[in-house]
């Protein structure tokens, strides 16, 4: 009997029911999309900030020593390996070019390498420094090089011209302008420079780009003075200093230091953006909840007549309340489910439009949103329902007619 009532009510006046479901769906969709984007925006912005360049610099511990190139893939064995988005080993030697000394830096431009667990990944200057602007092309073959903008204008080098480095001709494929030290250097493939200077297999620095958590009070503590519990928590948080700590452990003759210029500014920007988006998300969620609430409340007001008739024919308040409650719950569930589907699509669309990559959404979000939709719908229905039940049916019925 009860189920038949609910089913009948849903079958009658389908247009109004559809409106309610649609409104709940819209509210849920906005809330889900918003939460999805907000929960992921920190990671997305972190990736975006990688265009500042490497935030960790690894150098040999002893002065004038070098690091073995063969050891570099060991970086990919640290706990936070998935947060290392790229690294660029380099070796710098001074060459005589056109009668003046010019630092020549051998780097990985774009290199495939094999991690210790057997995966093949790409890294190099193009990954670590996405903001490098090149007039011309990236070098692809041995005996090709990039000229820094200042060097190029001083020595009159252009894409296509040839420079003699350590007695061998190199073709300039492009001119690099960064505004930093690279403007005064010539960049070649690392293997070329190692061979020409007799430093095969050696590098003198590694730039590492890592996704990190902004530093807080706890991050600044000295790991040497922590309790073992604190140390574990510190190591299991991707603070820039816990990552450098782990790098030093896998590359024993090295010193890894945060590049504070980059690490500081990204930390500040990230924490500000996080806070901003959180507050906006809260405001928007309130708006979505109000929408669902007001739509449900309006439809309940409309149905005062029905309630009065049920009361007049002897239904108890409990029966009426559970009948309407079940109906609203079904509408909330349906609207919530539709809304979550739409919301997830919206979040992906925002991710695609703004960040050119999809948004990763925790799977808990879907059931949570549906539950919230139901809860808010029921909460919206409660006050008008209670009010109608408290009124004498005769008055409501007379008003209706």
């Amino acid at each position, binding site marked *: 009997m009860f189920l038949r009532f609910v089913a009948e009510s849903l079958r009658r006046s389908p247009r109004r029911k559809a409106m309610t479901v649609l409104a709940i769906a*819209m509210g849920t969709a906005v809330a889900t999309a*918003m939460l999805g984007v907000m929960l992921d925006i920190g990671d997305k912005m972190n990736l975006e900030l990688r*265009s500042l360049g490497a935030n960790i610099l690894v150098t040999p511990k002893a002065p004038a020593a070098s690091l073995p190139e063969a050891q570099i893939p060991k970086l990919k064995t640290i706990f936070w390996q998935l947060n290392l988005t790229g690294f660029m080993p380099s070796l710098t030697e001074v060459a005589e070019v056109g009668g003046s000394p010019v630092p020549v830096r051998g780097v990985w431009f774009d290199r495939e390498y094999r991690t210790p667990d057997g995966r093949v990944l790409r890294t190099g200057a193009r990954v670590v*420094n996405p903001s490098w602007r090149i007039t011309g092309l990236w070098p692809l073959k041995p005996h090709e090089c990039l000229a820094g*903008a200042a060097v190029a204008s001083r020595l009159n080098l252009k894409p296509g011209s040839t420079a003699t480095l350590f007695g061998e001709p190199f073709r300039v494929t492009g001119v690099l302008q960064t505004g930093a030290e690279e403007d005064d250097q010539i960049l070649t493939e690392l293997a070329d420079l190692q061979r020409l200077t007799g430093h095969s297999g050696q590098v003198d620095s590694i730039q590492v780009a890592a996704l990190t958590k902004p530093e807080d009070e706890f991050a600044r503590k000295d790991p040497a003075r922590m309790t073992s519990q604190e140390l574990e928590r510190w190591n299991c948080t991707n603070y820039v200093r816990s990552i450098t700590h782990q790098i030093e452990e896998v590359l024993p003759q090295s010193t890894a230091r945060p590049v504070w*210029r980059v690490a500081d*500014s990204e930390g500040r920007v990230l924490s500000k953006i996080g806070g901003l*988006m959180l507050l906006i998300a809260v405001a928007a969620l309130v708006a979505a909840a109000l929408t669902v609430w007001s739509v449900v409340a309006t439809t309940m007001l*409309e149905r005062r007549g029905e309630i009065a008739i049920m009361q007049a024919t002897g239904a108890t308040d409990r029966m009426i309340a559970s009948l309407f409650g079940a109906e609203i719950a079904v509408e909330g569930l349906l609207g919530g489910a539709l809304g979550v589907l739409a919301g997830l699509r919206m979040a992906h669309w925002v991710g695609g*439009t703004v960040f050119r990559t999809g948004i990763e959404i925790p799977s808990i979000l879907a059931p949570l949103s549906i539950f919230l939709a139901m809860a808010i719908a029921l909460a919206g229905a409660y006050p008008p329902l209670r009010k109608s039940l408290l009124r004498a049916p005769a008055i409501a019925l007379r008003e209706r007619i």
Partner: protein
Amino acid sequence: MYWTFVRGAMRLRARRLLLAFSALAVAAALATALFSIYSDVERRVRSEFSSYGANLIIASPAAVPLSAVTLARNAGAVAAPFLFTTGTLSGQPVVLAGADLEAARELTRFWRIEGSRQGCLAGVNLAQRFHLTLGTLAELREAPCRITGIVSTGAAEDNELVLPFDAVAKLTGITGSASMVQVRAPGERLEEIRAQLARAYPQTSVRIVQAVAETETSVVRKIRVVLFLLLALILVITTMSVTSNFSELVMERSREIGILKAIGAAERKIASLFVAETVLLALASALAGYVAGIVLAGYIGRQVFAVPFSLHVQPFVLLLATAITLAVALSSTALAGVSIWRIQPARILRGE
């Protein structure tokens, strides 16, 4: 007569209108807050990036005149000169950097300094190599000094000895020029200041530090696009809820509409009654929402960017918020008002 109708309708349906009013006011408040943040976010984000240090470098193979510092400062930028030379520390060659760290505070905010900023600072790698700690004497052949601070930046400074600018200038015998001038120009005037400096000192090269300039621009753009999309979503759901509210309103008043039609009112005239009501409602909600919105924006500014709470009254934002609220309200009325044409007076009056 017309306005008597409008006034009467508003007074008699006050409760119902309150729901529509609050929905519109919430939309207006969010629109105001988002627009205020939208116009402010560039300045805020750029000021956070100031911890990156310089975004312009004046360098030269020869020397950069110190007057470049004055010129940059007059143009509204922060600027400081740096001078580099080599010295001999305990028999080994080291790089000596001359910088006035007090004047360059804005440009060196990311330097981690243990000890004092003034005096003789050792880079953290250099300190390790020569076993220097705070208070030890650095056996610099040119001018021995006591270490007052240890500096760590993760860049070249880690291997240098940083001395006061004048001390290095005396060692090198150079006066009136520097090896390099670092400049932090306001992001939106970066190109203008670069051009001005390049014109004044053609023999130097004035470089924009691409990494920070680009990142700033892209972060600001991304935040703005996200804010914009959020605003669009919020407006869509508000329109939705106001529409459902208004169509109920029209339904509820179908008897009155039927009577009006029966005594000869044109549908247009009846619709214009609703429009007038909507416009009044929207204007009131826009005003209330605007006030709430600037308070919200002030609160967000204080919470997130730690600027003192302040209310920015921008007429432009008020206009925009009002226009948006009106647009939402009118499109809801249009969607709901269609049914006025469908109401048949005869059936209504018979009581169906």
